[in-house]
């Protein structure tokens, strides 16, 4: 118990929680946009792998870090376009297409990695984003190092969360986007294109997922290795449900989740943790995600037209 209190009082714990939350925030926001427009995007896991790889590769080949982020975003949007083409105008099963996109994006990344670096045993490194201490604010005890001594990509994650909230709830575009996930027929009656709105949402959302993946190779770590996304995409889908499809709650969910993750990493190093197999600790994030889904199951306000394809002229 004393160990847990010690951990909770350390600034490094809170800094780690925010750091672990950052890629989840990007990807969860991406998924949230897709689902708000009525499309379940199960391509998330593979698109994160692709983002992690393409962003890293661009920097490895000499691009600067922000160009790398843009490359990852572009790659994500390209696969988002593929997903959207198959699921929106053609209305194919979002489950099948999503899983297919995950397999495709993952294997394309692995294939390209093997082509680009045929004979490496230890993955090469890049110089990742460095922490930027915001003057004055970073001097606040505990809170300062946790929130204001992070890398620029982490700051971007929080800015993006605000931007997504603002767009969804304070702009006509956001209203149309939310409506298209609830009642696409009504949106069409307003003279707006359901197809364009949904495809745009899936593309932009997929771009955010890829940036979430890129965070792993360009901010959290400095190299790309296989299995590095390791189910984070699926966890983000659970976080969207946990956040009741609202950006603010989704960010809180990601932070809460990351807090538990940071805690379990530290608990492994305590005397108690040494007696428990490490696999138990590694299971915690996945178990928490399932618990979050069960906990929210009664209250979730699922977008009414989620997973319902829209074909004009059918009504």
């Amino acid at each position, binding site marked *: 118990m004393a160990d847990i209190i010690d951990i909770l009082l350390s600034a490094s714990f809170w800094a780690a929680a925010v750091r672990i939350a950052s890629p989840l925030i990007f990807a969860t926001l991406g998924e949230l946009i897709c689902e708000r427009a009525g499309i379940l995007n*199960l391509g998330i896991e593979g698109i994160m792998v692709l983002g992690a790889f393409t962003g890293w590769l661009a920097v490895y080949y000499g691009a600067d870090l922000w160009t790398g982020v843009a490359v990852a975003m572009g790659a994500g949007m390209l696969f988002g376009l*593929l997903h959207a083409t*198959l699921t929106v*105008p*053609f*209305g*194919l*099963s979002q*489950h*099948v*297409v999503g*899983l*297919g*996109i995950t*397999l*495709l994006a*993952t*294997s*394309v990344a*692995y*294939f390209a990695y*093997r*082509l680009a670096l*045929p004979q490496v045993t230890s993955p090469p490194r890049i110089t990742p984003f460095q922490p930027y201490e915001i003057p004055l604010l970073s001097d606040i005890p505990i809170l300062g190092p946790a929130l204001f001594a992070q890398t620029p990509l982490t700051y971007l994650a929080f800015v993006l969360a605000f931007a997504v909230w603002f767009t969804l709830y304070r702009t006509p575009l956001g209203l149309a986007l939310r409506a298209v996930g609830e009642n696409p027929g009504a949106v069409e009656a307003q003279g707006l294109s359901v*197809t364009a709105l949904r495809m745009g949402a899936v593309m932009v959302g997929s771009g955010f997922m890829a940036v979430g993946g890129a965070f792993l190779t360009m901010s959290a770590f400095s190299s790309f290795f296989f299995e590095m996304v*390791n*189910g984070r995409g*699926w*966890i983000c*889908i*659970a976080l969207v*449900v946990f956040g009741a499809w609202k950006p603010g709650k989704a960010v809180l969910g990601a932070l809460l989740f990351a807090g538990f993750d940071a805690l379990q990493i530290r608990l492994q190093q305590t005397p108690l943790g040494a007696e428990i*197999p490490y*696999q*138990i600790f*590694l*299971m915690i994030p*996945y*178990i928490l*995600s*399932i618990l979050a*889904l*069960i906990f929210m*199951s*009664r209250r979730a306000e699922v977008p009414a037209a989620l997973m319902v394809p829209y*074909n*004009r*002229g059918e009504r």
Partner: protein
Amino acid sequence: MRLEPVANPGLARSLGYPAVALGLTVVVASLLALAAKADPFATLGLILKGAAGSKFALLETLNRATPLIFTGLAVAVAFRAKLWNIGAEAQFYAGALVAVLLGTGALGFLPGFLLIPAMAGAAMLAGALMLLGPVMLKVRLGVDEVVTTLLLNFIMLLFISMLLEGPLKDPMGMGWPKSEPLDRAARLGRIVDGLRLHWGFGLALISAAVVWIIQARTTLGYEIRAVGQNPQAARFAGIPVNLVLVKTALLSGGLAALAGWSEVAGLKGNLTLDISPGFGYTGIIVAMLALLHPGGVVISAIFVAGIFVGADSMSRAAGVPTYIADILLATALLFMVLAILLTRFRVVRG
């Protein structure tokens, strides 16, 4: 654009689009070979040769197809009822785990002809229970089974890893995290002496036939189809939808677990953490390419296994990364679902 149903698709339409889908997959394969600076025709030839060019290659493909038939059937059964079981990987490991728990002496008192059916039954039970949790959460609380079954895959793999580094670790394993080998009596024999193909393959074919009978000739099969097509209508017609989903889950989880059991008891002889290179996930592709038909699952499992085995051997010879197999399967899947749609609908402007 919008989609308009085609009343009478005709043979040209029904076969034309799937043929184009296959053709495009071959084009993608050629482009990937070019990207790897290899000759496309030679690469494709090497994949074919590695998959079916010799008796040894062909048997290797059938061995690889065995777990895929089981997981493909598991997925096909579940997807028919629109039960999205993405957890065949976890159920696979549940079956493999039971094989090791029961096959290393625990049931040593049983005569051989009882031991193997007892192990298979217990494995099916374990896999069924593995999927029962998510399906109960779905029918009772409305928790989406896609995410829960996916996350259980990760939990199960960590659980197996824990066991293999702890209580199940083989003391003679030179420190490697692997289980003790199964007793001889608990292993599946070969179908033909001297040929490297075990009875798991035979059982997979029998399972496909059983699933076909269930789907085509029983009330449960009819109910599963009805639930998958329209749960509200099925409920209105008096079908106990939740019960049907639970039965489907038990069948699906049991089939996936047989894959794990047959890999341990028929091929590998012990349990390691890497015994499945994603057989559970690949089962989804197998089932989709087969249009969820049990007979089709056998064919598509052999096709998919052939691509993997062929790509492995091609990669050693031509240097194109083995991941080409995964890309080809993903593109084949996406092209094929689109092609199937286009056989039934035509795209209309406006």
